[in-house]
């Protein structure tokens, strides 16, 4: 076995790609989620059915789109539908297996903030772009995978604003709110992988990437992070995964 050189972002993206299987339908957000989904399609998940919120169903771009509405997405889609249709007929009824989301802040229960940071809503320290399609992706996909770089500034005990509901305040909250999907099942970072505890739904470190220590992950988390009894070490990116990823991101 040769030792491949790779970055923490590459490790994160490849790990996210591995969460997808060839028979899934995936609602893809732009940025890291889009990169990961496109890696998956080109490696182990050629049948992955990608939807972008611009209405492109079953798209298969030959290069990475820069926005959720690039022309390449329309040209390579099975069909392009209106934006109301993509939300009402495709996302809302739970037809989509997995929603791939990013986050500006994420908390202990995988609630996501992409709206405002600091201050209050009407006078925030940082005004972010807002919700977009995320609240309903988080609510209605069968499951949600979050991809986000980990730091204590991003991984906060409680988000400043709940843009998209993860597991609310813990076990039973999604059911109480009537949310149909299972919510976030994995949070994949540049340091490791977190999953909600089956009983409390609190995010728990289940895997660390090669060369990362549990203490480093704790330090990059804004709450007292739960860690699995024996966290795994994530498999390194393979040669094919890396070459596919690099050909996508360099193009």
């Amino acid at each position, binding site marked *: 076995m040769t030792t491949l050189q790779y970055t923490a972002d590459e490790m994160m993206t490849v790990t996210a790609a591995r969460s997808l299987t060839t028979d899934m339908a995936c609602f893809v957000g732009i940025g890291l989620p889009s990169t990961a989904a496109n890696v998956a399609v080109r490696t182990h998940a050629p049948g992955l059915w990608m939807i972008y919120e611009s209405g492109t169903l079953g798209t298969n771009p030959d290069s990475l789109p820069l926005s*959720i*509405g690039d022309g390449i997405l329309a040209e390579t889609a099975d069909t392009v539908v209106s934006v*109301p249709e993509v939300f009402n007929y495709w996302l809302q009824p739970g037809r989509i297996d997995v929603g791939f989301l990013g986050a500006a802040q994420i908390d202990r229960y995988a609630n996501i903030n992409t709206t405002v940071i600091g201050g209050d809503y009407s006078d925030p320290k940082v005004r972010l772009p807002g919700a977009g399609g995320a609240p309903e992706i988080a*609510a209605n996909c069968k499951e949600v995978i979050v991809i986000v770089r980990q730091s204590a500034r991003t991984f906060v005990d409680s988000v400043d604003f709940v843009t998209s509901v993860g597991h609310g305040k813990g076990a039973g909250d999604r059911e109480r709110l009537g949310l149909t999907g299972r919510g976030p099942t994995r949070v994949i970072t540049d340091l490791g992988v977190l999953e909600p505890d089956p009983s409390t739904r609190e995010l728990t470190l289940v895997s660390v990437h090669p060369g990362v220590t549990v203490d480093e992950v704790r330090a990059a988390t804004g709450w007292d992070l739960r860690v699995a009894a024996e966290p795994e070490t994530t498999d390194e990116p393979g040669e094919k995964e890396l070459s596919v990823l690099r050909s996508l991101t360099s193009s």
Partner: protein
Amino acid sequence: MIVPLDEGIREFVHDGDTVALEGFTHLIPVAAGHEIIRQGLRDLTLVRMTPDIVYDQMIGAGCARKLIFSWGGNPGVGSLHRFRDAIQNGWPRPLEIEEHSHAGMANRYVAGASGVPFAVLRGYTGTDLIAQTSQIATVTCPFTGEEITAVPALNPDVAIVHAQRADRSGNVQLWGITGVQKEVVLAAERALVTVEEIVDNLDPVPGQVLLPSRVVSAVAEVPGGARPSYAHGYYARSNPAYQDWDAIGRDREEFQRWLRTEVYGTARTTREG
């Protein structure tokens, strides 16, 4: 029916109007937005699912009193600095915001286009968006007893969209990613459409949306009118223009210089690119 852009804006857009310039990444009516700036319109309530740099420009130029939206950013680049400056510092004037999710906005347009007062959806539940606006509520299903989210119809005074083609009668044809364009045109009191070209016959195109002239108030021929966004089949998105906007929008002085040279200093017909 067919008018120059400046006449179209003058006739159909007035101070204080609720105006929606729609376009989901594709076919954004940028030239129309610049004409609104050039005519010095004020106190507009701007509506759009994805306000991007043209809304940043209109806000920075002081056209807007309020923004109704679901995602405000520079796609693939980052934040909208004029938008942030208006919200955080009230420059050049305070900007009221009403914030939704995409699903909520799309359904508001659908209800508006359908002539019903509200739409229902599975959305917003558990989010902090609900507390920030009175425009999200719940209704109880009379059949199942289930409580479900409701959003009110959105009926702008004016919708402005860009399309590939129109014929001489004012029938409009667009294709590629068509977003919420049909819904916003049908929801609005008036609709102004800019097009790449006016042709004799609209030969059918797969995936087309056709807006019959009956629902279009006026059409203006503005080749390149969506730049720096794109028009499927005509030209590609200028990613550098979006990236360059970050530096321009970040600085008030720089922005005002840009306004002077790129908007106020240009005639309508030489403004593209």
